[in-house]
């Protein structure tokens, strides 16, 4: 039987780490890399007979992973986050996967369920949300960014598993909305950004997420997507600054998010002459946003 090492990074993870360790107790080796936890995380880890390593807390989890990818002694590595767990039948599925892995497949991307604010976050951006977590030891490298997938170090195939057949990662973000916003803002502030990505790209992503939010019936899902829409706008500003403000900041940047929320179809507002003073510039912005929306929708139609 081919051995597997589970590799986990923790930081103040006492609420979730027990469930994760229980769900992967079948792994042949469990290595936990703790980043300066001040709660009972490390005690829980040691009680479970896992191998504990410590490292200074860093803003970029993913880049940090590279330093510890050489620790596993098994041919396959399974990377898990501390707020995730596997189903009780995952062992059988995962062992079958690696037992029958074609030689050119170096990694598998597992589908992931995301539970946030007591709801299943299953919008198009969040399911199946494939994560490259199961790979031949030493075959992938992470980037320094947050939540960017690792890349094959020396080539090879990364296989996306069919969600209908595959074991899933279950990701429980047990946080309040305020904590979620705080975390997203922290990610945005500490992430790395590509060069010369136009502000319009961030704006379009924000609109896409806001349109997705409008279709949701659950308040929690709506709230999440609204945060993510504004997250795109904030990231655009950070990217703009980090890239030396090479373009001038459009006067309507960020307005799109608000106008998507206030859909004309949802209001019964009648014309009001007192609005005349601001109506003209606002209409210009609406026209611009409408053009952007049309572009997005036409692209979406082309891909369907």
């Amino acid at each position, binding site marked *: 039987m081919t051995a597997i090492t589970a590799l986990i990074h923790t930081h103040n993870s006492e609420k979730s780490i027990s469930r994760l360790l229980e769900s992967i107790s079948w792994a042949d080796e469990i290595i936990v890399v703790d980043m300066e936890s001040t709660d009972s995380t490390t005690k829980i880890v040691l009680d479970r007979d896992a191998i504990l390593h410590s490292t200074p807390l860093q803003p970029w989890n993913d880049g940090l992973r590279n330093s510890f990818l050489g620790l596993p002694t098994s041919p396959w590595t399974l990377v898990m986050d501390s707020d995730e767990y596997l*189903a*009780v*039948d*995952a062992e059988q*599925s995962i062992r079958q996967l690696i037992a029958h892995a074609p030689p050119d497949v170096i990694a598998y991307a597992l589908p992931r*369920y995301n*539970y946030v604010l*007591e*709801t*299943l976050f*299953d919008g198009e951006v969040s399911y199946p949300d494939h994560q490259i977590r199961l790979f031949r030891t030493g075959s992938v490298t992470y980037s320094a960014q947050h939540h960017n997938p690792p890349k094959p170090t020396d080539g090879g195939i990364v296989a996306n598993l069919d969600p209908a057949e*595959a*074991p*899933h990662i*279950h990701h*429980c973000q047990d946080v309040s909305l305020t904590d979620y916003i705080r975390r997203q803002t922290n990610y945005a502030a500490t992430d790395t950004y590509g060069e010369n990505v136009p502000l319009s790209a961030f704006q379009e992503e924000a609109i896409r997420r806001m349109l997705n939010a409008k279709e949701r019936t659950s308040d929690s899902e709506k709230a999440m997507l609204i945060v993510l829409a504004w997250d795109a706008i904030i990231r655009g500003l950070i990217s703009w600054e980090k890239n030396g403000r090479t373009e001038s900041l459009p006067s309507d940047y960020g307005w799109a998010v608000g106008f998507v929320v206030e859909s004309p179809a949802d209001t019964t507002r009648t014309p009001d002459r007192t609005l005349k003073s601001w109506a003209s510039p606002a209409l210009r912005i609406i026209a611009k946003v409408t053009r952007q929306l049309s572009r997005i929708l036409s692209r979406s139609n082309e891909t369907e």
Partner: protein
Amino acid sequence: MVTSTKTPLLAIVPSRDLHGLLRACLDSLATALQNVEDRDTVVCVVDNASERPYEADHWNGVGRIVRFDHHQSFSECVNRAAQLFPSHDLLLVNNDCFVSPLGAAQMLAALDMDGVGIVGSRLLFPDGTMQHDGVGVGSNGPLHLRRGQQPGLYPLSSTYPIAVTGALMAIRRQVFDDLNGFDTYYPFGLEDIDFCHRARQKGWHVACTHKYPSLHLEATTPGRIEMDIESRALYMERWAHKIPPSVRNNG
């Protein structure tokens, strides 16, 4: 605070999809467990590969959700949940079973009797007729006694049938461990009757309570009937020559 000295109780609810049905079931179970005064209780829902995982929602009174990504047999669901709580007696509850407020307390009182290892309960259909009043064996295998009959015609004192349904079943932990749990060779159905037969072979009694009947809709999980055919074939192969028919096929 008074600490219970009795064996704690694990209520196991295997379920797949049907979120509304599960919610109603758990509400009834929460009320029934409030009336169990002398034991600590915990409810474990076994999510048997629901398309929309139960993890996403809040469930009344549930202490633990055990998730399977791929559909498993009833036996596997029960055994895995029981493994997580190794010192608890068990109460199995189907998701289409609505437990009477006093039903669980009465079943556990019967389980406390000397020599009793398994306890079932009278179960009613929504129209008030009986769905289950213990199990007998007919010429075609096991059948529910007095199915479809009016409960008022029969006494309320406990009986000792040959077996009881796992739809609502209390199990003494020692029995469960002695038998290594339910037999996972059964795809879905009759593993409960097999379990009762094996318990009786070891000398344990099987009881059925009647005073506080619960409601059972029966076989609401999609695909359940097809799996039952395969289970019945396995059951007949194992038990037909050992447990001769003792009741007429109309129970």
